[in-house]
């Protein structure tokens, strides 16, 4: 999700130094040759494979958002982010992939910070849709998370200035395309 107020934690971090210091001993307790079997994830079921950006192209993003000069700034294994001119001042659009992370936590975060969070089903897949309000822009933000067993993906659409199209219409369409692109 798009952050709302993170600066409050900066002060808190100073208080962590003693805790971190307490973790500083005992690095010799392992033998170098020791191997660990994959500790993995018993009872965890992963969802399907999604192509980079959920298979959504830069051209589709430009058409859907009607923002010119969008730059795909962070294409990688956990998603993609598009920013106007590549900078953070302006609208934010992103898709994020979570492989083995509970959708319930992300939804809870949204419920604590958004104007509304509701259930949604798109192409037969369940998830949530969160709507965000800005005092001057109105409903400028929409985020949709869709669950696949213990995985989920999330589209985040956030506009920074008027005029802009309905962010939830865009999020729904991009979610639909991503679901269709699952392999």
């Amino acid at each position, binding site marked *: 999700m798009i952050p709302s107020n993170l600066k409050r934690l900066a002060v808190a971090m100073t208080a962590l130094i003693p805790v971190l210091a307490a973790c500083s001993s005992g690095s010799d307790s392992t033998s170098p040759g020791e191997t660990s079997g994959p500790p993995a994830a018993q009872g965890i079921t992963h969802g399907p494979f999604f192509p980079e950006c959920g298979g959504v192209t830069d051209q589709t993003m430009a058409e859907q958002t009607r923002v010119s000069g969008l730059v795909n700034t962070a294409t990688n*294994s956990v998603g993609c982010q598009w920013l106007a001119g590549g900078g953070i001042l302006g609208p934010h659009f992103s898709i994020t992939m979570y492989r*083995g992370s509970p959708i319930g936590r992300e939804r809870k975060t949204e419920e604590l910070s958004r104007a509304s969070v509701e259930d949604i089903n798109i192409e037969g897949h369940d998830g949530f849709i969160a709507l965000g309000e800005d005092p001057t822009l109105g409903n400028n933000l929409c985020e949709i998370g869709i669950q696949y067993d213990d995985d989920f993906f999330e589209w985040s659409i956030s506009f920074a200035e008027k005029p802009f199209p309905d962010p939830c219409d865009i999020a729904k369409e991009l979610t639909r395309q991503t679901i269709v692109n699952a392999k």
Partner: protein
Amino acid sequence: MTGPLRRVGACVIAVLAVVTMLVGCSRTVDGTAAKAGSGDVPRNDNSQKEYPNLLKECEVLTEDILAKTVGADPLDIQSTFVGAVCRWQAANPAGLIDITRFWFEQGSLDNERETANKLEYKVESRAIAGVPSIVMHPNDPNGACGVASDAGGVVGWWVNPQQPGIDACGMVIKLMELTLATSS
């Protein structure tokens, strides 16, 4: 979880516990506490679990440390996305750098390796701070580079420069060393 990871995990938990306490002191949320599913608050009743450590994940390394690692002024870094995946953008003198961090506590290094292979990234196995890890090299003209390590599920970093000529792999490995090294 094996020995060193258990220790790392214990420290992470200790740190997060403190963050939780501090977060707990710093914000008030309106409404009445209700068990998930109890149904009094329509839009809250379907959350599947209670997670008191909300918003914790992005703070394991401070923004100052992030900025320094990617060669940016600490004033020139800003968060753009938070949760189990966090994103920042930092201004290196050579250009903008996008940083991504992920922590999937029910994920695995094997699953991240499989995903990277399907994405046709070049995947290199190595140890970082003694922890089994992979370094991921997409075919990116700007030299984007990612790393994932077998700790607390799976934890990872990506650095996506917006222009060529930046040592993204060196940066992500350093960020992972800082994340995993509780003893240095």
